[in-house]
């Protein structure tokens, strides 16, 4: 993902630039001690460790930031925030980067964006996760036949263990609507 493309996309989104500036400001006092990378359970799978991610953020290397999988693999377990000697809000910063990536709808994260959106809509609608409908909605959104095919193996195994309930929605609408409105309001401020 080239730096210029990122800059272009951000040009007309002042809210996202402000969002990123806030992340950068929060990370300013990072002393590069490596505790976050050491304590992150998913660090092994990330192409760029959290410590390197914060370095890139501070160096305004948005090209590196948005070409890495790091914030997508962050499982928000908050261990890094607990251990950071500087008391920096590391997990919230990762979430912020994730939101900016979704908002920019970068095609690099196309699949993750659609999965997260499908997941959120599913919960908003039913107040709980309905796996089959969630995956169906996700496969439709991805519009790429190969993706569902890749899940068939896992699907069969889950069905064998009665983890997948083939029936269609019968429960009434979920009651989490107001919670979502409130969250979106807060996001605007």
């Amino acid at each position, binding site marked *: 993902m080239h730096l210029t493309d990122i800059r272009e996309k951000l040009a007309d989104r002042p809210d996202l630039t402000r969002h990123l500036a806030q992340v950068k400001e929060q990370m300013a006092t990072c*002393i*590069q*001690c*490596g*505790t976050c*990378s*050491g304590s992150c359970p998913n660090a092994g799978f990330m192409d760029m460790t959290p410590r390197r991610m914060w370095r890139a953020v*501070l160096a305004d290397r948005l090209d590196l930031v948005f070409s890495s999988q790091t914030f997508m693999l962050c499982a928000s377990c908050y261990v890094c925030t607990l*251990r950071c*000697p500087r008391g920096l809000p590391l997990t919230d910063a990762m979430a912020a980067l994730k939101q900016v990536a979704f908002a920019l709808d970068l095609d690099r994260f196309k699949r993750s964006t659609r999965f997260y959106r499908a997941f959120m809509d599913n919960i908003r609608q039913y107040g709980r996760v309905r796996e089959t409908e969630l995956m169906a909605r996700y496969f439709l959104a991805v519009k790429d036949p190969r993706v569902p095919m890749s899940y068939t193996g896992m699907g069969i195994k889950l069905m064998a263990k009665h983890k997948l309930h083939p029936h269609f929605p019968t429960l009434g609408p979920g009651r989490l609507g107001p919670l979502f409105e409130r969250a979106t309001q807060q996001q605007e401020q």
Partner: protein
Amino acid sequence: MTDQIGRTLVIGGGISGIRASLDLAQSGFQVLLLEQSDRVGGLLSQLDTQFPTSTCGMCRMLPMMDRDHGDPQCLRRGLAHDNIEICVSTDLISLTGEPGNFTVSFIDQTDGGRQECPVLVVDDEKIVRDSMKEWLMEEGYPVQTAASAAKALELLETGDFKAMLTDIKMPGMDGVTLLTRAREIQPDLAVVMMTAYAAVDTAVEAMKQGALDYLVKPFDPDAVLLMVDRIYKDAVAKNARTDTVDAVILATGATFFHPDQGINAYGYGRIPGVVTNLEFERMLSHAGPGGMDLTHPVTGRPVTRIAWFQCVGSRDIQTGTPFCSSTCCMIAVKQSLLAKTMYPQVTEACVFYMDLRTWGKASDAYARQAETAGVRFVRARVHSLAPGSKETDGAIPVVWMDPSGERNQSLFDLVVLAPGQHPDAFLTGFVKDQELAADDWGFVRPEPFLPAHTSRPGIFACGSATGPKDIHDSVTGATAAALSAMQVMAGAGRHLVQNSEPAESPDQQAAGISLFPGALVIGGGIAGMTAALAIADQGFEVDLVEKTDQLGGNLVWLQNGIQGADDFLEQQMAAVQAHDRIRVHTRTCVAETTGRPGRWVTRLTPVADAGKITDAQILEQESGPSPEDRSARQSAGVPVRHGVVVLAVGGAEAGSDTDGLDQKSGIYTQQQFQLLLDGNDIDSGSPLQVALFQCHGSREPGREYCSRVCCPRSLDQALRLKTLNPDTRVVIFYRDMMTPGLTEADYTEARKKGVVFVPYEPGNAPNLAADDTGCQVTWTDPILGRAMEMDADYVVLAKGIRSSLSKDLARMFGADVDGSGFFDQADIKWRPVEAMDPRVLACGICLEPGSLALTLASARAAAAKAVSLLGRQTFFPGQDTARVRSAFCSLCQICIDACPFNARFIDPETRTLKVDPLACQGCGICAAACPSGAAVVAGRSLAPMMKTIHAALNTPL
């Protein structure tokens, strides 16, 4: 009556307390030394060796003169001096008054102390009762507990309690009613309410009904102890001993952070094999738990792999200690070096650090010594520890991420944590009672430009009470505090204990020497001026020699770089010029000196041409006048007679100015850039790109020391640039950011303002490609692992400090210059401002690189030493001073070569060998070297020793 003997109270018997007490006692004043614990020595008694050498040497703090007034013994066995009254296991009850008339009351803990203050703890929760009981018992208070108010009243009937701590919400009778009922039984009982957060208003209500105070759950041990402490002091105040003193020196030091507080990510106390560095110090010692072997504290097996974790409870906002505790890095370096050299079984010694802070003069070379001994230094912070399992055979697995992002794992038998330091309960209480100005973390804040002074006149502070310090800084600060106390006592008209003791015998009278009463201070910088003023204020004549034509030295170009330094400099220069006992000789240098130490006649000569001093001239000055030139100056010299000399010739930016820096491409040295900043010649309109390059030429072969001031200076410059224009991009290239102690706050502040810090290894420093348009800086970022480059408008090279002290000048007074060109101190830790001869002193940055605060401290310390020497009329030989039987002496000078303190010399007129009673330490080495028995030391020559040997071998048991 005002003319009694000057007496000072020193609180705290650790390293600083001992040093301050000995300085005052040696000068002839009396000292009252109070120590809370049961012995004098503080941390000292637990240390076999101290960095930056792997040797001990604390007994070198003992006085060099009048040794008959004290016990010549290892300080770990105790301190004894006629002028020091030592009270151990003593609690300070109260301190009131002003300089010259302080009233202090104190009590011995063991009799009439804490036993006299029984405490009753009333709470329905067992856990609260037990923990409170444990804390209070440990402090020596007798404690009883009661689960309910009824039980409490029952106990109150029979027992006689001084304090009661009671919960409010309890089944049956609540705390408030218990309060009223209790006060009926015992009206003078002090009651403290313990309340959960919600019930504070009821606690306040209780206070209206006579409760002394309230504590909020969850309790902090220190708060509880502070509360009970106050009650205890009021209770025993009546049978405490009171005394009046003229000045007070606070030297209570700091305590170590307990790693099990807070999140305890390293499982201290849970995981066997995780110890603190103080505990490991004891394990290393042969007098420690493991005896002669280094064994695992739990399994008892020999330890082979040791890891040191730095910054546990320092530089950590989570534990409320965002400052650096200054000494832990060097402790780790020493312990790792000792572990590798004392115990061959240790195969793996690994120090995990963020910045290895080796800022002392000899510290960096000592750290390199550890590296060559096989210690591995890894720049990483281990996030947490899991206990060892059966597979790892009990060894602790340590996982860390090195800068390149590689995940590393290794097994260690022992993990040594470096806990930070913070103020102890006593200091917090004392600061509150005496309303001393303290900084944000509870340390005493020294007055600007008066390192030992607190906000209360007459009360001085030194050592770690004013912020974590190493031995060198503590000892220098303690001597400076002693000077401040002397100034107060002089002001109050006090006199010395023994000013002019008569000689006991005629030949002792003949062998005595009296110093010329004046002092010669060479170098008119801020160090020289401060020392001159301090000596002159005590009533002695001072000759201040400055080779340029104006005073001020380096502070002249630096005054706008330090807040308030400009007025201070002006004030000092005015004071020096106006002082009637200071003769200022500008554009003058020392031609040569004659006479014995203490009776020097030094010839001062005007510097050759009348014009501005040329650089070449200064360089020539520094290397000393060439021989033929010296004779030319012989004639015009002004002879000065002085008994003490203070070398304060200062230093300059290292790296000669002519090493090809072309400022048109924006490359400046730190000093040049500071002048630009102060002269606001930096146009801050458009954002700039500035690169600050640390350790440029320092900490490398040829100059193996850290100049200690460049990192704080660069941070200050970076912050100035950011305030000028927040969008200016400032990048600091560093090896280790040396911001020890409380200066760590500037480092965090710089990061907050967006300054980028790029660490580099000595091997691949960033390279500068300068051309006339600007300078391009290229480097590989160690964390991103990518090549980066930057077109810098300004590149500032931190060249560090070099000393201007020439070998010739030092040798002229029998001192010398060390490997790095600075003044060769008698002992870098224990006698930091003196040469081997106590009459040759040094201060400022010709002694060691340091900040303005350290320069002022060393200047006042040097003045203290000078004053204590000049204050004595004559120095008579003690019982154990060497004597010479000239009839047998063939002047072979073997004894002169053998004497470690060059106390022996040949008197030119009489062609006989004489002993300088002030320098001679009575060790007897000369007596052993002399074949003919001409060198005699009482009790340590052939005849007495043969009697001793005969008695030893022939007396039946």
